[in-house]
């Protein structure tokens, strides 16, 4: 099962757990989790759709939608509760935090119920018992039999996953190479950089079914059941909900629905999905990516600029207690934002603010990036204002202009002209940095390219495509900015 252990997310999870236990202990006694869902009429499922055949995006009649055996499991649970299933996609690492902050009602994402995770969320019975295979090049089929055949060779596995840890532990004389994405591993395999890829059985079957060059062999890893099983996660304390879902899960197991119905259905999607792996076939996905990247960038530049002007003015406020306090606050804000990673800020706005108001991912992303950009823009503007000769202010004031009018008509226009190149750079940086919001599931370019990669099993082509797209965006932007810069030159 996927089991990435990123320290940061663990910390964030702990933080959020702290918050939520504070707010939920009060009503833990009366468990109304099931009635709440029934009243709402929808069950929101969080999943990370980059893991066929568990969950992945498929193009059905020109529309992309999330499919896979986990979605089928979710549908069954929702149907048994008599409510509608809503599928929400986000990165695997964000799933449990989303569950705890109430952004989703349940998580089904090939997740295995490890003791560490049990501390934070409640799991149902397992609905699927998997195992591991090793994918190799078909031409090597006679050479490798199981994990022990790779002495002196290299096998790959997803970094931080159970496969990765077990491969290291249970082989000797074999190099284990970690990469974050399975598509990259397959690519490495086909270019003979590695000789095998350890992954889950159903995934291995999907890859082999869709690529004639590949074959799967048993791994023969020694594994405990909890390492290879998948469960549905609910918020901690929602016992009624878990009990209800367990009834559906038990039925799924008893009737062997996963192997009999869900996996074959998912396999069909995989087939239609991979018939045409040309990048042109996915132009709509890339277009959506460009659209969101531009929306995020333009909105963030706009709000970031306004915030930057306000912050820079606050930082230059001189006078009474109030103005001094304002200056200190603005300075502290700017220093804090510049001293913390944008990625953490994005996570904090989405999940942290999410505890108070439920913001959509796109809005959260725009807010976070605007807040971030504002701090940098404030510094540019402050520098710009300081670069305007004091004589300009004195001339304006001696004409009877107020300090506000002086700033607006005399100082700021000159300051902006001086810092125009820096502001332009900030805009271009934002086009590139907006990719960070892919972690909270906004469909901008990076996010879209990852989906295309896992859909097509092609590792490089989508990256090349977005590289060119990013370049076109930034190049066009810098031409436009240069044009305006030239127009502002009078002297």
């Amino acid at each position, binding site marked *: 099962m996927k089991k990435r252990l990123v320290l940061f997310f663990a910390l964030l999870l702990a933080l959020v757990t702290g918050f939520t236990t504070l707010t939920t202990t009060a009503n833990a006694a009366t468990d109304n989790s099931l009635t709440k869902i029934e009243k709402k009429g929808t069950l929101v499922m969080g999943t990370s759709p980059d893991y066929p055949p568990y969950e992945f995006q498929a193009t059905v009649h020109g529309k992309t939608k999330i499919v896979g055996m986990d979605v089928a499991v979710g549908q069954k649970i929702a149907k048994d509760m008599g409510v509608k299933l809503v599928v929400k996609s986000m990165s695997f690492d964000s799933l449990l935090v989303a569950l705890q902050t109430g952004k989703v009602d349940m998580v089904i994402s090939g997740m295995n119920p490890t003791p560490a995770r049990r501390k934070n969320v409640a799991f149902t019975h397992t609905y699927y018992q998997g195992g591991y295979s090793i994918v190799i090049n078909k031409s090597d089929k006679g050479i490798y039999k199981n994990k022990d055949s790779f002495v002196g060779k290299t096998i790959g596995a997803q970094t931080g996953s159970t496969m990765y840890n077990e491969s290291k532990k249970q082989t000797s004389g074999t190099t284990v190479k970690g990469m974050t994405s399975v598509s990259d591993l397959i690519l490495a395999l086909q270019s003979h950089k590695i000789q095998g890829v350890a992954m889950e059985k159903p995934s291995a079957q999907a890859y082999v079914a869709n690529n004639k060059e590949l074959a799967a062999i048993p791994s023969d890893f020694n594994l405990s059941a909890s390492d290879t099983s998948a469960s549905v996660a609910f918020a901690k304390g929602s016992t009624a909900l878990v009990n209800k879902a367990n009834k559906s899960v038990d039925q799924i197991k008893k009737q062997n629905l996963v192997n009999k119905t869900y996996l074959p259905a998912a396999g069909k999607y995989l087939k239609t999905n991979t018939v045409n792996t040309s990048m042109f076939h996915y132009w709509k996905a890339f277009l959506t990516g460009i659209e969101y990247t531009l929306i995020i960038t333009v909105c963030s530049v706009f709000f970031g600029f306004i915030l930057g002007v306000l912050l820079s003015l606050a930082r230059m406020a001189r006078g009474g207690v109030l103005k001094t306090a304002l200056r200190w606050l603005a300075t502290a804000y700017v220093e804090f934002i510049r001293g913390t990673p944008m990625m953490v800020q994005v996570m904090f706005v989405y999940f942290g603010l999410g505890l108070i108001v439920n913001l959509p991912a796109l809005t959260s992303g725009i807010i976070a990036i605007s807040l971030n950009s504002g701090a940098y823009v404030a510094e540019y503007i402050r520098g710009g204002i300081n670069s305007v000769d004091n*004589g300009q202010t004195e*001339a304006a004031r001696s004409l009877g202009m107020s300090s506000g009018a002086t700033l607006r008509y005399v100082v700021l226009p000159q300051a902006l002209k001086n810092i125009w190149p820096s502001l332009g750079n900030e805009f271009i940086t934002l086009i590139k940095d907006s990719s960070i919001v892919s972690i909270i599931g906004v469909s901008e370019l990076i996010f879209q390219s990852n989906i295309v990669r896992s859909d097509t099993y092609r590792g490089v082509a989508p990256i090349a495509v977005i590289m060119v797209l990013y370049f076109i965006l930034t190049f066009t932007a810098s031409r436009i900015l240069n044009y305006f810069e030239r127009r502002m030159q009078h002297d």
Partner: protein
Amino acid sequence: MTKPIIEVKDLAKNFGKNQVLKDITEQVTPGQVIVVIGPSGSGKSTFLRCLNLLETPTSGEVDFAGENLTTLDTKRVNELREQMGMVFQSFNLFPNMTVLENIKLAPMKVKHMDDATATKRAHELLKQVNLDDHADAFPASLSGGQAQRVAIARSLAMDPKVMLFDEPTSALDPEMVGEVLSVMQQLAEQGMTMVVVTHEMGFAKSVADRVWFMADGFIQENSTPDDFFSNPQTERAQDFLSKILM
């Protein structure tokens, strides 16, 4: 006697421990041309800037048309500043605006004059300083003498009652000093009240009504140009004149 338009009473100004102006009490009556002279660093600029409150006096008062500037709120100070034009050594034209826009800005933004009226008035003023053909030029393309004449026109656009000049010709090449001084002389002849800090002794002799000699934080002498140049009273002034007349 006419009522003074500017009255300075016990004015003092410190920068930290540096006592630049110690105790100044003087008056300017409407239509007078005052030339302030004195050694470098004696506080002439500081004094001039105290008159329109670009510098806040440490103590004492500055009255303009009967109102004590040091006790007024910012809004009223802004209103009174309109009536005191100031011309700086370094011109301080707005480099991002044309000559015409430089002149129109304050009338339009402060007095809310409409564009047509402001443009018309700006052209009149540019004719007065002989620069109407440069209306659409940007400041960077002007010579120092031209720039300073535009700065004078810009101040006049607010119809001030008093004009303050802080060494208006010090930054100019010698051949351009004359064109600026003649504009100032014309202004004086039209009856403008002027306080001029300058090292141009010729201008002081021919145009000033009074010469104020400043040194060591005080106005040491206040006399007519004739008296001052032919018969300085204080040793400080005699010393100063002997150095510059050499």
